[in-house]
């Protein structure tokens, strides 16, 4: 087992590398979802899917050989409700948990402001928990379902492996195939969009940087600036 200091050092090294790579690639989880929905731009969505494919194989592979540290995590309806609120919040703030840290590192005061209010929101809602105790952690965080509290206990690749006796990697391969299918679908859609743009407006398609996968940010900024009638330096960076 690794010591607590070792864990913290490993986490810091991992975090620093992630910060560097995310800063250099301008990847953002928020735009992976928002740009796909608003602008039909899939640059960040594709990267997210590739990472999830690698992770699915890696995690389920290590779980199959009895290795790794899967989160022992009670599943509940609260995950859906909480992330629904989070999803609205991240689009409004123009930053998710990763990009708010990365943009703060770049000197973005707006991102620091989002982080500050994220922490305030966390603290204020922790007071609310004192009165309602829902989700009822840790009283029901036992791994057992508690349907009255809308908690379903543990349910992941490890529990599947334990209950069925089938190695987790088998389920992992199924999920990999599903993610790969989604990736292919996006590629096909991108190609269709490109031809459509090429046929209707060959000039616009050539000059529009939005179809240029390498640098889509200015295009998004321009679209937003055009829609808003003013350019926001913060949102352009999203």
């Amino acid at each position: 087992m690794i010591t607590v200091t070792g864990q913290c050092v490993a986490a810091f090294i991992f975090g620093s590398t992630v910060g560097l790579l995310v800063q250099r690639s301008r990847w953002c989880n928020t735009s992976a979802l928002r740009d796909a929905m608003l602008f039909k731009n899939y640059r960040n969505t594709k990267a997210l899917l590739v990472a999830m494919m690698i992770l699915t194989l890696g995690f389920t592979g290590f779980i199959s050989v009895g290795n790794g540290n899967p989160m022992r995590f009670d599943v509940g309806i609260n995950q859906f409700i909480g992330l629904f609120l989070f999803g609205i919040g991240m689009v409004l703030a123009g930053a998710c948990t990763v990009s708010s840290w990365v943009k703060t590192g770049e000197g973005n005061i707006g991102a620091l402001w989002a982080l500050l209010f994220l922490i305030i929101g966390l603290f204020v809602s922790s007071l609310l928990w004192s009165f309602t105790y829902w989700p009822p952690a840790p009283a029901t965080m036992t791994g057992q379902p508690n349907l009255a509290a809308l908690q379903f206990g543990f349910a992941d690749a490890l529990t599947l492996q334990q209950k069925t006796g089938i190695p987790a990697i088998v389920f992992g391969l199924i999920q990999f195939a599903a993610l790969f299918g989604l990736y292919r679908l996006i590629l096909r859609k991108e190609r269709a969009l490109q031809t459509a743009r090429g046929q209707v407006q060959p000039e616009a398609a050539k000059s529009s940087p939005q179809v240029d996968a390498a640098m889509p940010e200015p295009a998004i900024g321009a679209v937003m600036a055009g829609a808003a009638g003013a350019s926001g330096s913060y949102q352009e960076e999203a």
Partner: protein
Amino acid sequence: MDLFKKTLDPIIALAIIALLDVFLFVIVGAWTVGGGETMLAGLVAKYVLGAKTLARIPFWTLVFTPTWAYWKIYISLGMGFGAFVAAVLSKEFYWRVPRHLSEWVMITIGGLLMGIGIRLSFVCNVSTFFGLTPEMNLGGYLAVSGIVAGAWVGSFIYKKVLEA
């Protein structure tokens, strides 16, 4: 170095991050940010309110007892540090301040909603996409459905605000 001159392909960046995340999964656990942020909120509250006052709030005694010896905090701090180094080396570091009041309002509301969401679900977007879902956790699937629905509603509001 070329890395600090050109924008890196996000697929390459995320593939490297995924491989490192698998390594982290083997030694401590998958990449997550919400847990570290929750702990940071507790540490800030402990500093501002004092340990005695904080001990009266059940959440900070039953679920998260504020401590600096929690690895997830250092992922968050590391991301800020790594981005700062990368931004300085590629000469992209400069102070950016939102110019319009509407931006400040949206960031404030968005930040609050993210905090409330993390607290309620015990999950953030990172553990959703880079932890729970690849572990095939049912909570991950619920969280992905939630975040996609939320992002859709958020995009709708965002568009309305931009058009107004």
